[in-house]
C-alpha cells in the first residue's frame, strides 16, 4: 500500500512528500485506542506463546508438567546435533523453494491467460479460485483419491503403465506429491493477486509499446513483469511463509511426514516431537529456532529487498 487514508473525523492533515501522503493526527490518544485491539491480539496470540516457547526450551519436563528440570541450552544442543533435524531442514528448503516457484509461475501464467479478452473469462477465473476455498485436510484427501497407489485413479493408471508409483514407500515420490498438492492449493491465491496486478497496469503504456513495435513477449518482460514486481515480492513472502508454516494439514493428511522422514518439514517435526512424542523441551527449542529463522528472513527481506522493488 502506498497511501494511507486517515479517518476524516479525527481531522488528520495530509502531507505530501514525493509520491506518498502522510497522515498526522492531532489527537494524541486516538491512534493508540484504534491500535489497541490489534496490539491486544498480537500480545495474547503471538507474544505470549512465543515467550512460553522460549521459557520451555530451557527445561526438560514430563507431559503433565509435574517435574521440570532447568537444563540451560541442552535442548538446543540436542536438536542441532540431531541428524534428523538437519535432514528436516533440507526437506523444508526443498519443499519451500519448490512450492513457491511452482505456485507462483503457474499462477502468473494463468493470470496472464485470464487477463486476455476471451469468451467466458468470468467462469474461468471463478473456477481457478475454487481450490483456495478447500480446507487443507480435504485437499489432501482429494489428492489421495487421485494418487493413492491402490485406490487412486491416477495412481493405479501409473502402475498399469509400468511406473512403480508408491508414495507410501518411495520418499521422492512422497515429497513430490506433497509439493504438488501444496502448490495446487496456493495457486488460486497467487492467481487473484497477479490478476489484480495485471489489471492495474495502465493500458496506455502497453499500447504505446505496441505502437513502438514491441511484440507480446517483449511487452511482457519489459513492461508487465517489472510493473508487477511489488505484487511478485509480496507473493514471494506470502508463499515462503505459507510453505514453511501453513502446509501442516496437507502433509499430515497425505503422508504424516513419512515414509521414513522424507516429508517431515520443520513445522511438522515441531508437531510430532511435541504433541506425539511429548518432548516439550525439544519441541520448544525447535520453535525458537524457527522463530529466529523467520525473524531473520523478514528483517533481511524488508530491509534490503523491498528497496529494490520498483514501482
Amino acid at each position, binding site marked *: 500500500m502506498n497511501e494511507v487514508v486517515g479517518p476524516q473525523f479525527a481531522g488528520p492533515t495530509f502531507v505530501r512528500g514525493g509520491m506518498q501522503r502522510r497522515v498526522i493526527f492531532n489527537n494524541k490518544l486516538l491512534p493508540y485506542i484504534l491500535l489497541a485491539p490489534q496490539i491486544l491480539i498480537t500480545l495474547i496470540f503471538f507474544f505470549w506463546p512465543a515467550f512460553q516457547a522460549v521459557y520451555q526450551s530451557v527445561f526438560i519436563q514430563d507431559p*503433565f508438567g509435574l517435574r521440570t528440570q532447568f537444563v540451560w541450552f541442552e535442548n538446543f544442543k540436542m536438536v542441532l546435533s540431531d541428524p534428523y533435524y538437519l535432514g528436516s531442514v533440507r526437506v523444508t528448503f526443498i519443499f519451500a523453494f519448490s512450492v513457491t516457484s511452482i505456485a507462483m509461475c503457474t499462477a502468473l501464467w494463468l493470470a496472464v491467460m485470464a487477463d486476455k479478452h476471451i469468451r467466458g473469462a468470468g467462469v474461468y477465473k471463478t473456477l481457478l479460485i475454487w481450490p483456495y476455498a478447500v480446507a487443507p485436510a480435504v485437499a489432501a484427501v482429494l489428492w489421495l483419491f487421485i494418487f493413492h497407489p491402490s485406490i487412486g485413479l491416477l495412481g493405479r493408471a501409473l502402475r498399469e503403465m509400468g511406473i512403480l508409483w508408491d508414495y507410501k514407500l518411495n520418499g521422492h515420490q512422497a515429497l513430490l506429491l506433497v509439493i504438488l498438492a501444496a502448490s495446487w492449493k496456493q495457486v488460486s491465491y497467487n492467481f487473484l493477486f497477479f490478476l489484480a496486478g495485471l489489471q492495474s497496469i495502465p493500458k496506455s503504456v502497453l499500447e504505446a509499446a505496441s505502437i513502438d513495435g514491441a511484440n507480446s513477449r517483449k511487452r511482457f518482460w519489459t513492461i508487465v513483469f517489472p510493473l508487477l514486481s511489488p505484487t511478485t515480492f509480496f507473493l514471494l513472502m506470502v508463499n515462503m511463509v505459507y510453505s514453511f508454516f501453513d502446509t501442516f494439514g496437507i502433509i499430515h493428511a497425505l503422508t504424516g511426514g513419512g515414509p521414513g522422514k522424507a516429508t517431515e518439514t520443520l513445522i511438522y517435526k515441531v508437531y510430532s516431537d511435541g504433541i506425539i512424542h511429548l518432548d516439550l523441551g525439544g519441541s520448544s527449542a525447535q520453535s525458537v529456532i524457527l522463530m529466529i529463522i523467520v525473524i531473520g528472513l523478514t528483517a533481511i527481506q524488508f530491509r534490503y529487498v523491498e528497496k529494490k522493488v520498483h514501482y
Partner: protein
Amino acid sequence: MPPHIVQMFEVGTATMMAAREAIKPLHELMRVANVPFDPKIYVPAVRGYYSLSDGRMMSTPFNSSTAVMFYNKDAFRKAGLDPEKPPRTWAELRTCANKIRAANAANIGFTAAWPTWTQFEQFSAIHDTPLATRANGMDGMDAVLMINSPLHIRHVQTLMDMQKEGSFKYGGRDSAGDALFPSGEAAIIHASSGLRARIVREAKFEWGVAMLPYYEDVKGAPKNSIIGGASFWTMTAPKRTPEEYKGVAEFYRFIGQPEIVARWHMETGFLPITFAGYDRVMASGYYKQNPGADLPFRQLTRSEPTENSRGLRLGNMPEIRNIIQEELEKALQGQQSAAESMENAVRRGNVVLRNFERMSRP
C-alpha cells in the same frame, strides 16, 4: 480442574504411571472408596498390561482389542486354496500369498495394518521373545530395546523378501492399511480385531478370521497375543472429595459387570475383558451366529502370559512406534538391510527410553 477419568490408549500406560501425583491407582481407589473389587475377574493378558509387577492394578481396562488375521475366502478359492484352512505359520502364509498373486485372485497377497503393533509387539509376544529387557519394561524404567534379535531381523527380512517377490505390500503407517482388506484389494491382512465391524459392513466377499501366524521352529511359539485399546485412569485434583472418588469407583464396578462387558463386546467387536463376560456371551449363542467372533479372545487367552507376552511398558512408546515404522519403511525402500534397520531402531529407541527415564525421575 482435571477430569475424574481419562481414557488412555495402551501404549500411554508407562507415561500415566510415571505421572504419580496426577493419578490415583485403581487398587488404591477401590480400597479408599471401600468398593469390593477383585482383579481376578479380568483375563490375565488384560490385567497384566495395566498392573505393576507385584500385581496391583493401576487402571481400569475397558476397550481392549488384539491383532488377528483376516482373509478373503473368495480369493482363496480362486487361487485353489482351501478357504477353511487359513495359514498357521509364516511359511504357509507366504505360500498362500504367492498363490493368490499367481492366480491374480487379489492385487495384494498379504498386508498389515499398525505395522509396529502387529509385526513387532504382537509378533514378539506370540514368539515368547522379548521386545525389550526388564520384562518389556514391566519391571523397571531402565529397559532397553531388543528388537535387533536374530528373530526380529529374520522377520524384517521375510517382509522384505515377500515385498520383492510381490506377495507382501506395505499398507502405510498406523491404521492406513485397514482400508485394503474390506475393499478386496488385499487377500490377507493382519489388523486389529476391532476391524471386524468395518469388514462386516463393507466387505462384498466371504471372509474368515484366523490367529496370527508364527515361525514353527521358534521354541515356545505360539503364545498368547497381547492387547491394544485403552483403559480408564483416575485423575487426582486438590479439592476432590471422597464422595467423588466413590462415584468413580462405583462406575468402574458397573462397567466390569458381566452383562455390561458382554454387551460392549457384542456391539463393538472389542474383546470381552472378563471371564464372566465371555461366558455370558457364549451362553447367549452369539458365537454360534457369528463364527470367529470369539477367535481374538481365544488367541489372547490361549496360554498363561509369560514375561514376554504380558504386555509392554515402555516410556514414550508412541515415539518408539514411529521410529520402528520409519526404520522399517527405509528397509522396505531398499535403503538399508534388515539388520541395519533394527540396529537403528534400537539405537534411536533407547535414546527415547533414556530421556523418559531421566524426565520421570522423582
